[in-house]
């Protein structure tokens, strides 16, 4: 597939590459799956078999999503690796890291290999994240070294936390030994049982049991302290959603612990007050939080505490969503709306510079999981490129989504910022019509 087009010239776009500290109008030449040359307009002498005119558009390193549920093996009725990566392409993502809460749980090198096989039909790069404990039961650690060797980029029990302090300590010790990130779904499930949204005035009004913000912050706080005990241990906090958790992450970073975190577009765009009429498309875990928590996330994006935006794309079938709110599955789809939401919220409403937004989708996530040669357009990097129009206004139509599932709260939402083309390994895999 890579060699269908051997060279591609992207002309006249505004190249934003935060890692290279580049923000200028440039031509970009991709050849044989790599970035071959970047130069001011019309300075590249080499010919190209294909050309894209990117005038007036942003040319960025290919977007990376650290947190996607592709649902295979075993849950193909929700999503497949093929359908999920097709949705990723529409959203401008050239690389996605997929979560291990599949059936069976992705806890062995064999299944990691299975996910990476070409017959899965992935159209973007797929980096599997393996389970941290066997069957994600939280008791016995998986073989980190073997998983790393077969291509897993991190471990996690996402969907649930590594709750036991002893297990988490062991995981971080092993992480330090082989330089392998441990991703924590921070939730003290002992105090969130039967809860289906954030604890606050809205949950009280709706008569729903609410998750207290401390159920997240307590685990983040504990794990940041644990990470500081092992020199080189790498802790990444998934879908961070509260102000109190940010305090713990900031402390860890200040103490030079290798702690990183991601935030989802929906936690930046919505609050728990948006949970109306028991619409289960507003039910996810962590839940939509208070306006104060949302403000804290926006501030942490601006000041650099947040390392990446990640979608937590969580497709579910209708029979799992069109039921009683308290019984419905947690999670929403997010790949196709991520950029539009982030630009709408951060650029349009909060005047965050585009370079920072691009960083959150590219060099930020690449650094979190050490995805070498990705998240940048430096010469020799992988030829993964995302071209987007930051000013384009459009309306998201969930019925046209490439995902197999349509559980999104953003159907019909007006967004600013749209992907124009997605290029993986030098090949155009998506182009907006």
């Amino acid at each position, binding site marked *: 597939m890579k060699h269908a087009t051997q060279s591609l010239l992207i002309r006249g776009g505004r190249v934003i590459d935060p890692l290279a500290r580049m923000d200028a109008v440039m031509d970009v030449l991709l050849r044989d799956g790599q970035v071959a040359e970047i130069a001011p307009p019309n300075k590249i002498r080499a010919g190209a078999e294909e050309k894209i005119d990117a005038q007036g558009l942003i040319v960025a390193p290919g977007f990376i999503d650290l947190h996607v549920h592709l649902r295979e093996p075993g849950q193909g009725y929700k999503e497949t690796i093929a359908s999920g990566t097709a949705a990723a392409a529409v959203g401008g993502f050239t690389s996605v890291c997929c979560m291990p809460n599949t059936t069976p749980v992705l806890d062995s090198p064999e299944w990691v290999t299975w996910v990476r096989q070409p017959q899965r039909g992935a159209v973007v790069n797929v980096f599997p994240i393996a389970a941290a404990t066997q069957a994600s039961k939280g008791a016995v650690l998986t073989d980190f070294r073997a998983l790393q060797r077969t291509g897993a980029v991190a471990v996690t029990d996402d969907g649930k936390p590594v709750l036991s302090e002893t297990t988490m300590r062991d995981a971080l010790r092993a992480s330090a030994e082989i330089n392998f990130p441990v991703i924590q779904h921070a939730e003290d499930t002992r*105090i969130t*049982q*039967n809860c289906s949204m954030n*604890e*606050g*005035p809205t949950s*009280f*009004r*709706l*008569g*729903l*049991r609410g998750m207290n913000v401390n159920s997240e912050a307590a685990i983040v706080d504990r794990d940041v302290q644990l990470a500081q005990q092992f020199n080189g241990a790498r802790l990444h906090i998934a879908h961070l959603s509260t102000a109190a958790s940010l305090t713990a992450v900031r402390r860890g970073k200040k103490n030079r612990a290798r702690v990183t975190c991601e935030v989802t577009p929906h936690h930046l765009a919505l609050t728990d007050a948006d949970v109306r*009429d*028991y619409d289960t498309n507003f039910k996810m875990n962590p839940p939509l939080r208070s306006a104060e928590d949302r403000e804290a996330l926006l501030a942490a994006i601006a000041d650099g505490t947040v390392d990446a935006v990640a979608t937590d794309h969580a497709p579910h079938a*209708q*029979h799992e969503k*069109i*039921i*009683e*709110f*308290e*019984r419905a599955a947690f999670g929403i789809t997010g790949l196709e709306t991520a950029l539009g939401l982030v630009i709408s919220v951060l650029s349009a409403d909060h005047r965050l510079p585009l370079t920072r937004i691009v960083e959150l989708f590219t060099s930020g996530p690449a650094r979190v999981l050490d995805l070498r040669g990705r998240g940048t357009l430096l010469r020799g990097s992988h030829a993964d490129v995302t071209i987007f129009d930051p000013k384009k206004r459009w309306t998201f139509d969930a019925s046209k989504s490439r995902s197999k599932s349509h559980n999104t709260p953003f159907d019909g939402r007006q967004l600013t910022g749209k992907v124009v083309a997605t290029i993986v390994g030098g090949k155009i895999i998506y182009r907006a019509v």
Partner: protein
Amino acid sequence: MSTSRPQSEKRSVARGSLLGIEDLPVSEINKLLLLARKMNPAKARPLLRGKRVLLLFYEASTRTRTSFEVAAQALGAETSLVISSGSSIEKGESLLDTAYTLRAVGADAIVVRHLNAGAPHLMASYLDIPVINAGDGMHEHPTQALLDAYTILKHKKKLTGLQVTILGDIYHSRVARSEIHLLSKAGAKLTLCGPPELLPEMATTLVKGLRISRSCEEAVRGADVVMILRVQRERLAGLKVSLPDYVSRYQMTMARLRMAKPDALLMHPGPIIRGLELTWDVADCPQSVIVEEVHNGVPLRMAVLARALGKAA
């Protein structure tokens, strides 16, 4: 009604539905209370002759269920009762599929009690017949609030300006949420009282002007209406509430009730647990209207059913 094909498509809530007090305008509340006055269970009026009212109960109920049944029958409607045990619900049928089934056998309205908040709302969003909420999880129990307002108005001139104290397990109570919305809309002055586990500070955000008190004596002093709620032991999961401590601090005793106005009403939506949230003598004291509340449930629910099926004239 013609046969209906299950159409899993969201629509707007059917006219005549009663899902909660929160979204019910004051004018509608007043209309229902007026209509209830015209309803006489002893003198049947066949307003709903030929109509079928399905009662779908996923949770135990004595008062609400029988009172809806009697109310529907007093208006000439036929009723059928579906309870979760012994029905296809036990086989795993979803709420919406059960609703479509009831619609297909000819239900003209569905009265539903469910253990999950929002379940009536889900049904009403996918059905073209009215859905009446007979209590959903910890959310609302609108007909209880309406019949209590009706009961108060039998004894007091108006709700506006009345000093009402609601005492007990507010957090787990759907009755409390409906009462608070209704009484607040009607202009009553509300005081809530209970321990923090059962009455979090957050409760004050429900409506404007709510007052919270942690002292039973202070909360009751000068009240026109004292409403007691049951401690819902079945919903206490994980909370550390000591019952002996609760009894000593919050149980309604004659001594405490005497701190209210001499003509204060003592109310309780039932079921009452004598010896826990109130003493034996309080339940039966002259000021107690507990039995009258149950009695008033019938005409009030007649009004709700008549409104639901467009016969509110």
